[in-house]
């Protein structure tokens, strides 16, 4: 067997990027300090819906250290009061007459430091006339509801209707099903709450070039959007994503603060920094979820799933600013048939305007996949209970079989590979499923509430094949540029941007494997639009499937040229050279070989006549298909009957993300993903009251789990390579967030089975569990 290359694929090497982070030497956007830099702070609306009758700047301008106050009227003069959203709706940068949600940006105040700017914010006087507030999306669609977007010439609050599947066929199949269950599930509005909030530093140099350091997961796309919105020539815009303190989808959109900071830099001629505070973050940045789902599922008497019908109302706030591929207004929600070969399915989604902040970002998942996985895995579990079949057994009977891949789902997706039974079997072994069920039966006899829940989800990540996936028309490929220096050291630049995923390490490992050079000889750079090749950025678990693939493909292009140089050095015909054991070898004569480092030196010193010097390649990778990671999770809980408190005793997660680049990093991604599956299932929610007040505007009420609440995760793996990815990987950052909630909720409902409860909407706060227990007497 060939010797492994140092830091190649499959090795758990410690992360390269840690070196700066553990020394406090990361360079996050708030660490950027420029001479003469000013600070921007924002006035925000206390009202969810109100007419602005006056904004008085005078007192603010009189505050020591305050230099400017920017309002919607100022922006309107430059035609910048509105900007387009990623879904081709329109969004205010600053309002000229009406505020649409509580926490909306109303004016920007520029000061010499952040304290002065905050003093200025407190001194701006705004007169509001409150208007009727629309919070409930169902009421928003009722006749007579106040029309929130008259500017769009709309006469109601309906944004769009989207559907997929065969409606008539599904109706027929449901009618012919022996058993049909229906469930209404609300997946509430939540917030990604990366520990670093959003912010930027905008600077305009003497040549008129704008540089913006900003918390963005997609710097290139942002540059193009900035160019289109502002009219600045694109070569005069440079977007730099420095170190990012967590993204999870929340740092994909363009927020008003970024634009106001740019305007402030242009008008003052000085660099301007804007750093959002946590309340601004929680009350105005893009939300996730907020889907009201009604699902119906049919099955035969002997437990074969037949049909699925799903009707959903999506609350989009006052504008549709969802971060979705353009052709998919409800994201990839139609992966909702999950791990099962339904013969018929129909999904429809309607979107409504309300007086809430806009968004519709993913919260660590690939465009609404969590909503889909949660729905299917909740209903499958309920169906198993209804049919009195063990939920594991029920899934085993219904899974898409391993020999059925590639599998075309009834809603149009072609799953690349899978072995669902294998993952569930492994999870059952790890947790000791049979013993747990025995224990549960004994406890139930004693009146104790213990539950076991399963989730066997299928994800869809790696957007995307460019024929179907684009954002504002820009196709969703991604890129890598790889350059080998004479001494065999490498610089690689990619179109994505890590926010903690460990790209500097995993991309180096991919290249190490493909180039036969040690990972520590390979530097990775991302996030500077002046240097990196164009890419669509990091979200939706697309980095490994796209840029990771581009890195491998660029390396392979380099190998093609390098093979010719190796042939030249070994004085054989290029046809006699093969890449084997991370070296160029003369076929059949393994002792005659050249390493990539040898070839690299020659590429600058001794290359064949007629060949260009250098050793580099760029690849823009357009994946032929999405990848479909999957997994099976099993959760065991104890429920305190009197208080409704849930204790997660065990949680086993078996994931299959195809070929694994760095097992330790993959485990870390799964731990984090599980925690962000647990959090919305048990703790997090942004509720609004009838006046439109955000009731979770700080971490006092928006409940991020600490190490105490977070379960002790147990992880396992199966490996089913993606057949179409260059080295078989699928993407992993989000699987656990997608898969975990249903397992937890299924476990709690399993514990409550004696009470006949079939649903409690997340988060499963003690008072909701208590209410479910007290609403019905035990059978």
């Amino acid at each position, binding site marked *: 067997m060939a010797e492994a290359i140092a830091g190649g694929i499959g090795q758990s090497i410690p992360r390269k990027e840690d070196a700066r982070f553990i020394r406090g030497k990361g360079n996050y956007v708030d660490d950027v300090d420029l001479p003469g830099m000013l600070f921007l702070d924002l006035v925000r609306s206390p009202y*969810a819906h109100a007419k602005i009758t006056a904004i008085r700047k005078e007192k603010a301008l009189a505050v020591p250290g305050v230099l400017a106050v920017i309002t919607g009227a100022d922006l309107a003069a430059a035609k910048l009061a509105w900007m387009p959203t990623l879904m081709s709706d329109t969004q205010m940068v600053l309002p000229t007459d009406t505020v649409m949600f509580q926490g909306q940006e109303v004016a920007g105040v520029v000061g010499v430091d952040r304290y002065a700017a905050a003093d200025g914010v407190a001194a701006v006087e705004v007169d*509001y006339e*409150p208007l009727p507030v629309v919070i409930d999306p169902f009421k928003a669609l009722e006749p007579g509801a106040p029309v929130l977007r008259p500017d769009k010439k709309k006469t109601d609050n309906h944004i769009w209707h989207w559907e997929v599947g065969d409606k008539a066929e599904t109706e027929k199949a449901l009618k012919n099903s022996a058993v049909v269950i229906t469930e209404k599930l609300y997946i509430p509005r939540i917030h990604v709450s990366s520990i670093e909030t959003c912010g930027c530093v905008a600077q305009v140099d003497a040549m008129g070039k704008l540089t913006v350091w900003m918390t963005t997961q997609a710097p290139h796309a942002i540059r193009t959007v900035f160019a289109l919105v502002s009219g600045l020539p694109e070569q005069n815009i440079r977007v730099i994503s420095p170190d990012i303190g967590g993204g999870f989808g929340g740092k994909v959109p363009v927020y008003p603060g970024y634009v106001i900071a740019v305007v402030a830099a242009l008008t003052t001629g000085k660099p301007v920094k804007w750093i959002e505070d946590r309340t601004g973050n929680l009350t105005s940045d893009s939300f996730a979820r907020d889907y009201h789902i009604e699902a119906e599922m049919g099955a035969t008497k002997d437990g074969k799933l037949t049909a699925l019908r799903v009707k959903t109302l999506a609350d989009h706030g006052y504008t549709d600013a969802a971060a979705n591929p353009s052709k998919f207004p409800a994201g990839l929600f139609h992966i909702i048939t999950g791990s099962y070969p339904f013969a018929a399915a129909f999904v429809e989604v309607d979107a409504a305007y309300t007086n809430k902040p806009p968004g519709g970002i993913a919260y660590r998942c690939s465009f609404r996949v969590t909503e889909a996985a949660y729905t299917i895995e909740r209903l499958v579990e309920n169906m198993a209970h209804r049919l009195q079949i063990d939920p594991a057994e029920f899934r085993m009977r219904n899974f898409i079989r391993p020999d059925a891949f590639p599998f075309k789902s009834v809603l149009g997706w072609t799953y690349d590979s899978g072995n669902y039974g294998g993952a569930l079997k492994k999870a059952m072994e790890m947790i000791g499923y049979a013993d747990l069920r025995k224990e549960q039966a004994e406890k139930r006899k004693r009146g104790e509430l213990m539950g076991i829940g399963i989730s066997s989800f299928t994800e869809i990540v790696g957007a995307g094949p460019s024929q179907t996936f684009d954002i504002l028309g820009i196709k969703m490929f991604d890129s890598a540029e790889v350059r080998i220096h004479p001494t065999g050291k490498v610089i690689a630049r990619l179109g994505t941007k890590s926010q903690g995923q460990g790209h500097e390490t995993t991309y180096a490992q991919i290249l190490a494997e493909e180039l036969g050079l040690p990972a520590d000889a390979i530097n990775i750079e991302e996030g500077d639009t002046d240097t990196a090749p164009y890419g669509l950025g990091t979200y939706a678990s697309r980095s490994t499937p796209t840029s990771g693939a581009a890195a491998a493909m660029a390396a392979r292009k380099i190998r093609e040229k390098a093979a010719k140089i190796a042939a030249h050095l070994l004085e054989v015909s290029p046809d006699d050279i093969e890449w084997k054991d991370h070296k160029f070898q003369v076929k059949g004569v393994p002792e005659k070989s050249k390493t990539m480092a040898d070839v690299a030196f020659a590429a600058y010193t001794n290359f064949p006549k007629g060949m260009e010097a250098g050793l580099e390649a760029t690849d823009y990778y357009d994946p032929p298909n999405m990848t479909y990671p999957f997994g099976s999770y099993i959760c065991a809980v104890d429920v305190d009957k009197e208080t409704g408190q849930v204790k997660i005793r065990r949680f086993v997660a078996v994931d299959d993300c195809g070929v694994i680049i760095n097992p330790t990093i993959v485990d870390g991604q799964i731990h984090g993903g599980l925690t962000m599956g647990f959090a919305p299932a048990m703790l997090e929610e942004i509720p609004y009251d009838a*006046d439109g007040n955000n009731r979770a*505007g700080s971490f006092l009420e928006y409940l991020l789990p600490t190490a105490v609440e977070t379960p002790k995760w147990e992880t396992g793996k199966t490996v089913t390579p993606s057949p179409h990815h260059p080295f078989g990987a699928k993407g992993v950052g989000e699987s656990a967030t997608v898969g975990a909630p249903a397992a937890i909720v299924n476990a709690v409902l399993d514990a409550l089975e004696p009470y006949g409860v079939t649903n409690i909407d997340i988060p499963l706060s003690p008072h909701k569990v208590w209410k479910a227990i007290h609403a019905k007497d035990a059978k």
Partner: protein
Amino acid sequence: MEIAGDFRVASPVGRVYAFFLDPVAFTDCLSDPHQVRAVDADRFEGTVTTGVAFIRGTFRIRGSYTGRTPDRQIRIHLHGEGLGSGVDADLVLAFSESAGSTVLRWTGDVHLSGPIATIGERMVKGTVDQKAAGLFENARKKLEVG
């Protein structure tokens, strides 16, 4: 947030009714520092510095009489802005006279907006009731003395 209360005062209804139609007289019953002036017959405006515990700030207020039924009922809308927050209240004052004294029954629907509602509500909730009760108690005292 609903608030309500009532009082009986040994004073004819016409006088009580007139008292509450005078925005300066009526808002003068606030125990917190304030300045209020009438804009016209229907509207008044000014500032009130108020608070509870740590929370303390000056609110710009605007008020308007939204309904009048002589000697029977007055409706007032109050709108205040301060501390980056908003307070809006619809007050209904209902009068009835019996045996030379007047019973005033007041109800109000108070809406808080912004940081006070989002973050400070647990600190403010009990107090709104108290402040309103204090105002009407001061009004009763004034009417009784006068």
